[in-house]
């Protein structure tokens, strides 16, 4: 945020904070390591609020759970802001010194009364008021979120709404305070660090900034395109238009992870050329013209990963990859060589030192220092710098160091896939403790908790629909339909259903989801589909 793509705080800060809002995050199951830090904070006395449509296992740990309607986060955040301002609990000195755009923001949130928010979110006004006051009054407070915020058609607006709250109260740039998106893998952050996003070069350097680009042009002796590239959803749109005909997929399984799966499969199947580089023969790989078997990043190659707290850590090779599988660096250099560019045979250390030369935030992180310090948190501009515990401390300098942080007024917009008489139930998707995404990385390990896919349904809805716990039903959205057994789950209120995408071969959940994407982030609205649940015809129910 504010230009740097990472969480502001260190794990240890959440252990010493006073108040935590888990917003759209079931960290107990989806980020168990991070949640373990949260629990330390809770045990040390931090208050925990959970904002989630479902009363998840994380919410069960919370002092207060706010059972929001899917896709009404901005309404809740704006109402909290209005309440904080009206109660005089905002931080005028901080706002004045370190931010811009407060007047416009104040005007924008003014219509979001507690009553309106109660109507839109379903959360009682008193509970909204309570969380607003508690957040504003806390000495140290953090907001942590995950895909409940970002898997929406207005994902960036959702994030901005949360950032606004931190700016309003000054809960950023100080120890124990902050804004923290939780990352789903050990190295999601590292992918962003290395420029695997359409508009950034390594180190979050803007590709559309000519001066920055020139540095890379010179180092790489080539011309870096001056426009941002496509994000994943735009790539699929380009495939649809016929503008994108060849695809090189590294360590991703879009055939099963994309929303509106039938459509995605169709597009992938009709590419002129599809190359997949992976450690498994995924569904996507099975569609590929060329499959490049890769070494496993966590045990068969050298390199680094970056955790959610921006900590770059060394990964060391423990095993030789199986015959035929090769290190990613080796594969990429070999492709370059065959395309007429001899990059030689760089080691992971060579590649890393190139990163350090080009990315100022990584400059001070030699392999030796990474080892000695047990990892370093960026930014770390030189070899005397200890790394950065938290970001944006500059906002508390007087005068502010660097540009001031902007408020960004945002408005509530309902999910794209509207509920109707035909599709009356809101389906939201997520993950469970023992499985990861499409199961490519976790399905091979047995788990006593894993029982396949279910449609989690409020017991009240199950009874209303006359389907028993465990009975197979037909679930349909405007895009497709599938059969799946029902599980009564009191975590879902009537009208709310939940599924995961862990078992795409058994239950292709993404047949149901909508590919309405946020134009700014490219994330699809996995969290909000409208569905209908139907009892199977008597002949079919025998399979239940």
């Amino acid at each position: 945020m504010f230009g740097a793509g990472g969480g502001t705080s260190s794990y240890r800060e959440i252990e010493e904070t006073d108040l935590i809002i888990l917003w759209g995050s079931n960290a107990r199951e989806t980020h168990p390591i991070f949640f373990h830090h949260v629990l330390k904070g809770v045990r040390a006395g931090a208050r925990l609020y959970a904002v989630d449509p479902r009363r998840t296992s994380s919410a069960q740990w919370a002092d207060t759970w706010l059972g929001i309607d899917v896709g009404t986060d901005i309404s809740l955040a704006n109402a909290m802001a209005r309440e904080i301002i009206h109660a005089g609990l905002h931080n005028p000195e901080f706002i004045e010194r370190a931010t811009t755009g407060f007047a416009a923001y104040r005007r924008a949130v003014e219509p979001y009364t507690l009553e309106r928010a109660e109507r839109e979110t379903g959360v009682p006004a008193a509970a909204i008021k309570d969380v607003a006051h508690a957040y504003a009054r806390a000495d140290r407070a953090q907001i942590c979120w995950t895909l409940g915020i970002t898997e929406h058609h207005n994902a960036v607006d959702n994030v901005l709404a949360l950032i606004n709250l931190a700016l309003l109260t000054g809960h950023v740039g100080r120890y124990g305070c902050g804004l923290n998106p939780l990352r789903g893998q050990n190295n999601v952050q590292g992918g962003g660090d290395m420029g695997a996003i359409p508009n950034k070069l390594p180190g979050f350097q803007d590709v559309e900034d000519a001066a920055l680009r020139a540095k890379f042009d010179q180092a790489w002796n080539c011309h870096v395109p001056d426009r941002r590239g496509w994000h994943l959803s735009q790539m699929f749109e380009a495939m649809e238009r016929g503008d994108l005909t060849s695809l090189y997929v590294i360590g991703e399984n879009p055939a099963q992870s994309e929303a509106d799966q039938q459509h995605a499969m169709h597009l992938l199947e009709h590419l002129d050329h599809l190359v997949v580089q992976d450690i498994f023969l995924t569904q996507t790989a099975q569609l590929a013209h060329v499959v490049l078997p890769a070494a496993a990043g966590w045990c068969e190659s050298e390199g680094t990963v970056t955790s959610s707290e921006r900590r770059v850590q060394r990964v060391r090779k423990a095993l030789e990859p199986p015959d035929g599988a090769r290190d990613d660096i080796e594969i990429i250099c070999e492709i370059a060589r065959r395309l007429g560019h001899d990059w030689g045979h760089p080691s992971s250390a060579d590649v890393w030192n190139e990163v350090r030369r080009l990315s100022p935030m990584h400059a001070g992180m030699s392999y030796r220092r990474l080892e000695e310090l047990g990892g370093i948190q960026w930014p770390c501009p030189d070899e005397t710098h200890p790394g950065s515990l938290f970001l944006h401390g500059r906002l508390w300098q007087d005068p502010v160091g660097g540009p001031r942080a902007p408020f960004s007024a945002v408005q509530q917009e309902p999910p794209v896939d509207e509920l109707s008489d035909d599709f009356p139930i809101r389906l939201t998707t997520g993950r469970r403790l023992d499985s990861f995404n499409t199961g490519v990385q976790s399905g091979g390990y047995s788990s006593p908790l894993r029982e396949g896919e279910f449609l989690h349904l409020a017991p009240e809805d199950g009874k209303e629909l006359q389907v028993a716990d465990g009975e197979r039903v037909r679930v349909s959205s405007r895009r497709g339909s599938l059969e799946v057994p029902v599980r009564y789950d009191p975590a879902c209120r009537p009208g709310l259903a939940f599924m995961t995408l862990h078992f795409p071969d058994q239950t292709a959940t993404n047949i149901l989801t909508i590919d309405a994407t946020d134009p700014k982030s490219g994330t699809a609205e996995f969290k909000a589909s409208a569905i209908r649940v139907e009892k199977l015809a008597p002949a079919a129910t025998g399979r239940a």
Partner: protein
Amino acid sequence: MDIKVAGETATAEEREAVDDVLGPPRSGWTGGAPSPMDQRVALGGRQARAQRHLLLPTLHAIQDRVGYCSHGAVNYLCERLTIPPAEAYAVASGYALLALEPRPARVVHVCDDLACRMAGADRLCDELGRRLGPEGSGGGSGGSTWMRSPCLGRCDTPVAALVQQAGDRRQRSEVSVGALSVEEALRLLTPPYPDPPPPGGRDIVVEGSPLRLLGRVGVVDPDDLSSYRAHGGYAALRRAVALGQEAVIREVQDARLLGRGGAAFPTGRKWDAVARAPERPHYLVCNADESEPGTFKDRVLMEADPFAVLEAMTIAAFASGCERGYLYVRGEYPLARRRIDNAIAQAREHGFLGEDVLGRGFAFDVEVRRGAGAYICGEETALFNSIEGKRAEPRNKPPFPTAVGLFGKPTLVNNVETLVNVLEIIERGAGAFAAVGTAESTGTRLFCLSGSIERPGLYEAPMGITLRELLERAGGVRGRLRTVLLGGAAGSFTAPDQLDVPLSFEGTRACGLTLGSGVVMPIDDEADLNGFVLRIARFFRDESCGQCVPCRVGTVRQEEALLRLIHGRLDGERDGQMALLRDVAQVMRDASICGLGQTAGSAAESAIRLNLLAARGSAPA
């Protein structure tokens, strides 16, 4: 906390029992009737966790109502407190008095421990087994059963029993009785059940000179505050408040009072440490979980002079800055609990407890906690865990309770007898107090005499009285003296030629003995010493909390080695088993976390040293 509750659900009466303690549930998420609001807001977290300390009282409430901690009731309790059922099970299964399987509403626990054994408890139990079926079998007519029990703290009137009747408020009762016979046991187990014997039972033998701690016992009406005040009650508190906090602590320090619970720590130093601890609040805990086999002194004090215990607690709280006190009473002492409950109610009513004690601007109140049959709870940190609703396992020390105690706060924990001494110190002054006893062990001591003695009972004597003199005061040994067990199961046996040992902390220490909890149990040469020592070994094996390996494994190995030793035939093996016993005792002493393990080998070791054990069939060497 994400909790999976599976299986049975609570019946209406079980829910009522739980709600009586916890209050009605506040939402559908915690076991109440679901409301539309539940789908939008759930309050939990610390609010629910803050009630964790009510786990044990609620388990008691369930068992009092339906006779055992039923699966359904515990499930409901877990929902209310957001405790995983496995954790509640871990807590409940640590207490001998809590049943986790269905059992009859009426249970007679028959003590077969040291003193009662010598009085024929085994024969009595065998007879009950013959007539009613094995213990716990529900063989008694009309839904009753009998069970063997470790020491019930009525060693002066063996054989002791605890009679529990579950049911609603009208039906349930709990009473402990002495001098049990087979006929009486059968009467207690066969409907129509007799009314419980009058509280107090038979007269307590209380002797001593000077009588300082026991002066009011048998004289004052234990149920009446006015009677207590007419006998000098609450004069000490008034004087303490007049002296002020620091002066009170100085008096206790100057009196050189040492703790009577077994560890003999300087009481004044403890008070001072808590008073100075910057963290708030401070807690006071009175350890009345007297469960050392052979000990009954705290029971007598609580049953016969309950206001004195409260007054002493109030003085301790005043001096050390505690606003809340817990009095943790053994589960096997129903009468003591009733008397204390009543005394608290009267003291509150008359301003001796509450927001403004004596109108002098300090607040103090006492909550009674009822133990549930766990010797380990006598260990102070295990007792804290028990109050907090956790499994009663000792904590590592340091930190010591004066810094990190109950609920993680500075805590003053004293034994009942220790506290009652304070009344004497405040009333007469440190100098007068210390004039009695020896230089290092000041004041008087309570001695629990039972076993082969003419007049069993509770005796008060100056510290330093010789063992011989004490035995003579109690009418002398019955039969020919073989040995004396000093200090209870955690103590050791003395030789008949050690009768001149002065009973003071330093005097016993010099002879490699311990005063412990004041148990003095002479054993004549007719008694079955093998069985006696085995009973001690079985006691420790049962009571080890299982947390640390030396004790968990060591107590089992000790019992096995003793069995082999007693039943063995070869002399060579005998030497091997003795060496093993010494090794096990050494390891337990060196490596156990708490005093239970550290002393679990002490009695057996001394029995071997004194050559008290006989191979079966052969006479002792």
